[in-house]
């Protein structure tokens, strides 16, 4: 998506969100009032509650839409990426079906980056859910966190400054993507999951999160050969826990001196 298109989309999303939030407040309030008048446990009460939850899902969608359009300033914090991976572990095992083997790996020592912790968790879960949906016949999915050092061509290819990055990679052995699908994967509302399958906001949210954190989302895939999606985030050194350090991370500033 071109930068000016993204900006126009953000403009539109911001304008509509305000009115939609008003509308949802009314729907939620009216439904909640109905539910209060109905006997808990009755079919009608359940219907009202389903309606309320649907409205709340709508509210969540608006929040994601705004995040995807990059108009919502993220809450940046220095976070331990390994702990973040550990935090999604239980949920990931619940999300992934039994016919898929799931492997999650993160280094034992902490890896720090500066990002919105909720955004990171959402991004990792989005990648895992996409991998699951792309693996309908069973197979394997892995999530791995590690550090890489980018120089010259490697950095330019990802439009990133040379430096040390924490990389979260989700691989699957699923159906893969065509070059056309890959090209459009991060467009808001683009989905291959059909009208009831997805919102088309998953990868666009992940892409938005990576950019907001000064990083990049890289996609590699071939039809029938699975996919590899990697979120690159600039590594932060805990010795200088300031935002400036994100811009110029150096290889030797890790306290233990060990970078893989």
């Amino acid at each position: 998506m071109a930068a000016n298109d993204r900006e126009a989309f953000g403009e539109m999303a911001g304008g509509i969100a305000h009115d939609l939030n008003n509308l949802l407040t009314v729907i939620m309030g009216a439904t909640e009032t109905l539910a209060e008048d109905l006997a808990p446990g009755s079919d009608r009460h359940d219907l009202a509650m389903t309606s309320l939850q649907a409205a709340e899902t709508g509210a969540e969608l608006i929040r994601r839409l705004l995040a995807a359009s990059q108009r919502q300033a993220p809450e940046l914090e220095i976070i331990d990426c390994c702990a973040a991976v550990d935090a999604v572990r239980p949920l990931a095992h619940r999300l992934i079906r039994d016919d898929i083997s799931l492997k999650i790996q993160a280094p034992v020592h902490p890896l720090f980056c500066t990002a919105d912790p909720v955004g990171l968790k959402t991004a990792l879960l989005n990648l895992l859910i996409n991998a699951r949906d792309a693996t309908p016949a069973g197979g394997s999915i892995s999530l791995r966190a590690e550090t890489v050092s980018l120089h010259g061509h490697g950095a330019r290819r990802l439009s990133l400054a040379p430096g040390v990055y924490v990389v979260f990679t989700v691989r699957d052995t699923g159906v893969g993507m065509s070059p056309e699908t890959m090209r459009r994967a991060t467009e808001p509302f683009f989905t291959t999951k059909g009208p009831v399958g997805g919102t088309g906001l998953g990868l666009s949210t992940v892409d938005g999160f990576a950019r907001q954190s000064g990083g990049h989302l890289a996609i590699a895939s071939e039809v029938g050969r699975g996919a590899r999606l990697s979120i690159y985030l600039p590594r932060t050194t805990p010795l200088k826990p300031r935002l400036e350090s994100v811009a110029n991370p150096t290889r030797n500033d890790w306290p233990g001196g060990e970078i893989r």
Partner: protein
Amino acid sequence: MTAKILVIDDDDHLRELVCSRLRRQGYVVHTAENGRVGLRIFEAERPDLVITDILMPDMEGIETILRLKAGATPPKIIAMSGGGHIVGRDFLKWASHLGADQVLAKPFRVSTLIAMAGDLLRDIDARRGRLLGWDPELQPMRDMGQDLDRLFHTHG
């Protein structure tokens, strides 16, 4: 004494809904469609609590909050915002810095708003009660005393 609430929002449906839910709770509720009308009603009715939207045509919520808080007897204030702009969230922060007692991002459950209103108005009741020599914190002990009296009179 029944607490008075003023609801200011340019969205008719939202105003009606919030208003009817608050009336159900037994509050006396006035409504206004913008800050200008809201301030006029405030002067006439002196509500204990003002619930105001932030992004409105005519007079916006931020200015409304400033004027309400500048008065001699400022009310409790809950600010609401539907966000939607990059500053949308900041508006709620500003509202809070400028004196809103609570802030609420739309969409919210009306029960959350009612609970917030109840909390703020309880503070007012408690203060009023102390002025009148009645302390709500002592009420449970009085009730217990009355229970003991009844017991004493029944079985004594």
